[in-house]
């Protein structure tokens, strides 16, 4: 027993190392999946409010760009108003209002923490469950798809960015209408994504890749434009490179998509069809 104690004190550095290393790895493996919210992340009160203050200062530096992009978006939306269409036949635009029921609503939020250079990137925003945000909602911004809500607290939410090794979204070619799955590229480039399609799809250079409308997002929100057609790592699927529409490094305001019928759809799809 005495010899054992002497042995342990002589090589105490190694045993201390084992204890701390194992506890660190346990924390890493247990909580890194983000399924369980912990207190060691950027939605807790201390880190959350620190990030909020710093992002407020940073916001001043890019006011001009933000104004420009908001003005562009306003112009685009104004173009979609019914009043901006020329009515050539009276019947065509005679719309009975009850036909339309609002399915998607949008919650605007400010980005208070954002990373683009890790292999798994997350975005923290200043809206949480009190503003109607729940896990697994889609997130977009003025120019395109941003990601999906991964965790919420009362006042903050963490978004699993499109720039995440496990992000996967349903996407569609705008002309061909073939549906595939959209992931982040493999080389950590914040401006490039990867679209996997069935082999019979016919993508063309510069074609826009949009959301399919099967889940989370309304249809037609852009991911980006196809920049390269050559297949990567040959396989069953056709892989095309897509230049992302969203500049993740300059993200400031985003919209969380609230789909009113999401639960109904998910509930129906979960039922086993016999």
């Amino acid at each position, binding site marked *: 027993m005495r010899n054992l104690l002497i042995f342990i004190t002589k090589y105490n550095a190694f045993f201390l190392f084992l204890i701390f290393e194992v506890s660190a790895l346990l924390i890493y493996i247990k909580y890194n999946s983000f399924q369980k919210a*912990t207190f060691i992340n950027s939605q807790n009160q201390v880190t959350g409010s620190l990030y909020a203050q710093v992002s407020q200062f940073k916001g001043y530096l890019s006011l001009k760009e933000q104004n420009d992009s908001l003005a562009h978006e306003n112009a685009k939306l104004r173009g979609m108003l019914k009043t901006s269409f020329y009515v050539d036949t009276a019947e065509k635009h005679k719309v009975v209002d009850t036909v339309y029921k609002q399915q998607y609503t949008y919650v605007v939020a400010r980005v208070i923490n954002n*990373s683009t250079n890790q292999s798994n990137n997350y975005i923290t925003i200043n809206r949480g469950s009190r503003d109607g945000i729940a896990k697994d909602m889609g997130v977009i911004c003025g120019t395109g798809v941003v990601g999906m809500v991964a965790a919420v607290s009362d006042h903050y939410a963490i978004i699993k960015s499109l720039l995440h090794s496990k992000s996967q979204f349903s996407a569609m070619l705008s002309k061909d209408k073939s549906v595939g799955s959209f992931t982040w590229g493999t080389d950590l480039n914040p401006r490039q994504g990867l679209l996997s399609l069935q082999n019979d799809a016919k993508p063309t250079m510069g074609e826009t890749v949009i959301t399919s409308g099967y889940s989370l997002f309304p249809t037609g929100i852009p991911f980006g434009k196809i920049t390269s057609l050559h297949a990567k790592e040959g396989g069953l699927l056709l892989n095309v490179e897509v230049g992302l529409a969203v500049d993740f490094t300059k993200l400031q305001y985003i919209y969380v998509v609230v789909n009113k019928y999401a639960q109904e759809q998910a509930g129906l799809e979960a039922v086993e069809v016999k």
Partner: protein
Amino acid sequence: MGRTIIINAIRFLVLVFMQVFLLKNIVFYNLSTTYFYILFILLLPFEIPNLLLFVLSFILGLTVDAFYDTPGLHAAACVVLALVRILFINITVQKEGFDNEPEPTLSIMGFRWFFTYAAILTLAHHFFLLNLEVFRFSEIEYTLSRVVLSSVFTVFLILVSGLLFFKRKERK
């Protein structure tokens, strides 16, 4: 003694703030990111007990993790760094010399020793951190180039900071 504690506490806060609000946003060609906060562990005094060294490394790692949203990742890498530090100092520094060499800084230990010290410790930390983050062998070449280029960036910052706080009279 009291002075050492205050200096190290200030160093801890300053380095963590720099890391999470400034250096986190700096990246070259998706390859080179710096983890400059490890300077805190590098500059702890020689005579620090092993237990305290490991506890401080663990806390530093968890603090950075809280801001990076990666619970445990930086803590694990910092604990590895602490072990490498103990081994390196055991091999290269004589125990008797501790009285007039309290801290392993550039101005006290000289350029050659400090450069080797910083380079080896940084490489060990970055190698462990980036591989644990990716956790795949299929991209090992890409990860290794990230390790090397990030280490160059970090060691560069460490040497610059060493020269900034260089005290000429202490040099032997």
